[in-house]
């Protein structure tokens, strides 16, 4: 029976907005507990050094100081995919900004004062900053013990006695033969700098080590259960001894995935006799102590026929992992299996190297490596099209994945993947592709248009799972319990819509608790990779079905009919065809009471779950396998104006098409697209770490590291959401939250070529960068 959807697809406003506009929403930043101590860090001024001596006597003697810890006190290694990191540097420091000593004190001022009294003697050692240098033999080893590190076996392949934390190979067809037969060849190099996530709430964690060995944690995290699990692994505690609370989170974008500051505050609390300890990263620490997006150096070779078909593609991706590669190895892996773009490439050869250097380390960042590899691929596709004398949109059209094609890992492209070509056509139409831009108002300005494709699948373990519980209240309303985190995306609102739809109750009667708590909310791996609405949506659908099964069983007994004859509608249950006899859920939610006092049933509590299915590890030698639960495709079209006098770029319009499968909440989906596009413009035009020759980060503040402000918006943004359904998605939906930022830099780079006739190969496309290239090419304003 197909029913018209009442809530799914509608722009239901987010349920937490009132708390957030009144300032009453509580974030980890805002929490305080009786006896709570405040922590501060001494960080390394050197990118690579041996720690000769740490003297904390003066710090420890300061009144109000309750604990001082150095790496020598802590023999623990941390990590999700690769256990390569310490809580505090031990024996050596590997990047400028690395925590060396931590202090917990009665006030933050005392803790910071104590840090200034810590004396650390370093002996600087040879450092390596460029990952391409780090791959050479004889390069200083960032991790001489790499061979002994625990890691996810069979998925990641660290090379002992090198700086290579992981090498992901993709081998399909016969690249050498195909490239030799190609009629047109393109070879190009591209670079991306490391970039910061910049959540407005910096990382913050509180922990209390309890006297019976348990630990309670409050943290600004995307990953309550992964925090719990990794704490368990690191400290040998049973999972039940660790309770992780995640209140409202002020933005994540990947930077709050996995384990971050939680172990630090835990060991400080233990050392301080079990008092709660809070650490809030300063904005400077957010830049130079906490992880960022990895830098990337790409070399891309494309061979095509004169008719405009790609026959071979080779890419070498060298990732600048920084000092630790726990999450970086998975970025290098995921970006490799997406590393030829959304095209049918019969012969493909990709090497993706995740390489340690002496810089701040990398992690997941919205798009998980895809913005980086597609900066190269989508610029190279444009360059190849020009060599062929083909319109870049037409060249893409001839090569986009279509029914029956095999991806570079051997997955067959089906109707259920959506329609990349529709995304391309939609953005082309939206920016009047093929029609030259109108003349700019000033003679120093030039206009141009560019297009770029994007694709991404969730990068997650093959057994990733999640669960949901729905409890019915005395008044018949429903409470959803999940442990995925809504750090702004709006997923909780989407899950409420799904539950209301499934349970047949009004949306206002569906609630979701914004605090995750591993003691009460059920398992979810972690909230990353645009998979929460997809997986959590399934779990909620199943939990709702479980509730309805329980309701039908009781109603069947009351009405003396079979359970399958019970209809649930309008928050009530009745025998099919007899809606007048309906009993409201509120009389069934805790069990039904007959007029004589007899009771049947009991509290209705439904449980649902979902696990990734059909995924395989990739073959270590060929990369063949099924890595992706689903793929989301999209495209951007950009028209821009560049001022040859100032180097400034203004985006006149940007259209973004994403094949969402099914739009579950139009308003929230639009919010993800607009927010993603503007974040992508940041990566394109301004953002990137700059280091001095000693490896010190030169721009760890908003003065020197510009992110988009309200003044920097394009004149026009056009979000386009297509709905070619995902057969196994909830209501046909697939994830869309990361995608809108992915190929923004590529489309801008392509438009910039159109405007100036200059190939830009590195990001960001800052005014200084543009002016330098104009001067080099002798272009006068």
């Amino acid at each position: 029976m197909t029913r018209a959807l009442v809530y799914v697809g509608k722009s239901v406003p987010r349920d937490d907005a009132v708390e957030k506009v009144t300032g009453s929403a509580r974030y980890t930043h805002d929490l305080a507990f009786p006896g709570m101590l405040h922590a501060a860090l001494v960080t390394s001024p050197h990118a690579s050094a041996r720690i000769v001596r740490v003297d904390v006597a003066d710090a420890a003697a300061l009144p109000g100081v309750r604990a001082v810890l150095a790496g020598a006190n802590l023999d623990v290694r941390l990590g999700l995919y690769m256990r390569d990191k310490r809580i505090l540097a031990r024996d050596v420091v590997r990047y400028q900004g690395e925590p060396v000593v931590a202090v917990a004190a009665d006030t933050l001022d005392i803790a910071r004062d104590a840090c200034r009294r810590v004396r650390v003697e370093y002996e600087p050692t040879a450092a390596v900053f460029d990952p391409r240098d780090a791959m050479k033999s004889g390069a200083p080893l960032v991790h001489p013990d790499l061979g002994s590190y625990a890691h996810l076996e069979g998925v990641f392949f660290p090379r002992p006695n090198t700086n290579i934390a992981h090498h992901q190979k993709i081998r399909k067809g016969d690249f050498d033969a195909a490239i030799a037969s190609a009629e047109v060849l393109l070879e190009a190099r591209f670079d991306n700098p490391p970039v910061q996530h910049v959540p407005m709430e910096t990382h913050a964690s509180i922990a209390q080590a309890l006297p019976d060995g348990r630990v309670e944690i409050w943290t600004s995290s995307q990953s309550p259960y992964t925090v719990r699990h990794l704490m368990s692994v690191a400290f040998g505690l049973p999972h039940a001894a660790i309770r992780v609370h995640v209140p409202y989170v002020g933005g994540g974008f990947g930077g709050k995935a996995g384990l971050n500051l939680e172990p630090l505050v835990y060991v400080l609390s233990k050392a301080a006799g079990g008092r709660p300890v809070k650490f809030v990263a300063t904005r400077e620490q957010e830049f130079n102590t906490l992880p960022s997006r990895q830098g990337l150096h790409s070399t891309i070779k494309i061979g095509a026929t004169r008719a405009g078909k790609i026959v071979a593609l080779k890419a070498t991706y060298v990732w600048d992992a920084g000092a630790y590669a726990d999450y970086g190895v998975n970025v290098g892996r995921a970006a490799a299996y997406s590393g030829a773009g959304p095209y049918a490439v019969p012969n493909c050869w990709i090497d993706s190297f995740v390489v340690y250097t002496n810089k701040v380390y990398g992690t997941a960042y919205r798009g998980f490596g895809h913005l980086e590899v597609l900066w190269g691929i989508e610029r190279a596709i444009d360059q190849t099209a020009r060599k062929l004398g083909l319109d870049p949109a037409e060249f893409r059209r001839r090569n986009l994945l279509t029914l029956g094609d095999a991806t570079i890992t051997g997955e067959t492209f089906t109707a259920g993947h959506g329609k990349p070509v529709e995304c391309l056509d939609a953005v082309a139409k939206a920016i009047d592709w093929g029609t030259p831009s109108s003349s700019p108002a000033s003679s120093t300005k030039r206009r141009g248009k560019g297009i770029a494709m994007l694709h991404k699948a969730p990068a997650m373990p093959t057994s990733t799972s999640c669960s949901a519980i729905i409890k019915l209240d005395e008044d018949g309303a429903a409470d959803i319990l999940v442990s995925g985190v809504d750090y702004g995306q709006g997923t909780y609102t989407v899950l409420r819509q799904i539950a209301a739809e499934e349970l047949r109750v009004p949306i206002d009667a569906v609630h979701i608790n914004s605090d995750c708590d591993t003691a009460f909310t059920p398992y979810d791996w972690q909230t990353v990779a645009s998979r929460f609405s997809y997986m959590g949506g399934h779990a909620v659908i199943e939990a709702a079905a479980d509730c309805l099964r329980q309701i039908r069983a009781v109603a069947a007994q009351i009405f003396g009919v079979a359970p399958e004859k019970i209809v649930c509608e309008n928050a009530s249950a009745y025998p099919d065809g007899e809606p007048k006899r309906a009993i409201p859920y509120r009389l069934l939610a805790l069990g039904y009471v007959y007029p004589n006092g007899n009771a049947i049933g009991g509290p209705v509590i439904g449980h649902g779950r979902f696990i990734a299915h059909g995924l395989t590890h990739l073959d270590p030698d060929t990369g063949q396998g099924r890595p992706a639960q689903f793929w989301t495709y999209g495209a951007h079209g950009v028209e821009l104006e560049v001022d040859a006098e100032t180097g400034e770029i203004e985006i006149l319009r940007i259209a973004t098409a994403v094949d969402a499968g099914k739009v579950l909440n139009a308003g929230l989906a639009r919010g993800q697209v607009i927010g993603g596009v503007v974040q992508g413009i940041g990566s394109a035009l301004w953002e990137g770490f700059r280091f001095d020759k000693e490896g010190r980060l030169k721009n760890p503040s908003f003065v020197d590291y510009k992110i988009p402000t309200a003044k920097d918006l394009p004149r026009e943004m056009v979000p386009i959401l297509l709905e070619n359904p995902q057969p196994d998605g909830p209501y046909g939906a697939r994830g869309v939250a990361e995608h809108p930022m992915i190929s923004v830099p590529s489309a801008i780079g392509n438009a910039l070529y159109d405007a100036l006739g200059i190939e830009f190969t590195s990001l960001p496309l800052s005014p200084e960068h543009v002016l330098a290239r104009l001067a080099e090419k002798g272009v006068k304003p």
Partner: protein
Amino acid sequence: MVDIELRVNGQAERASVPAGMTLLEFLRDRLALTGAKEGCGIGECGACTVLLDGRPVTACLVLAVEADGLDVRTIEGEATDGELSALQRAFVDAGAVQCGFCTPGMIMSARALLLRSPHPTDEEIVEAIAGNLCRCTGYEAILAAIRAASEEGGKL
């Protein structure tokens, strides 16, 4: 320690504070008004924006003693009698909130604008929040919310 007297959201407050205490610390740690957020601590992100005698200031850069004798208005004073202001309602309706961490400061900057210019131009709106960073929304919905509220003259 310095004795100060001020009004916060219409309420008289008297306190003895260290000379170096910021207004943000005073509001958050002494008065438990945690709506104003610290996003950078050096006046660059706007998350701690409050009104001082009607003017928007970044509370992390103002000392509590500088607020002596003045009128402070924070996000907690924006709703009255449990009713959202038109501005807050517009933020909810326009979908101008995602993670919400910048939202209190953003609303206070918008409030300051509407106090001095009840019917601002689009340029004035952009200018008013140019110092408030948001990483989630892309600003478009925030600008739309302020525009919508201003169409009602920014009344409470």
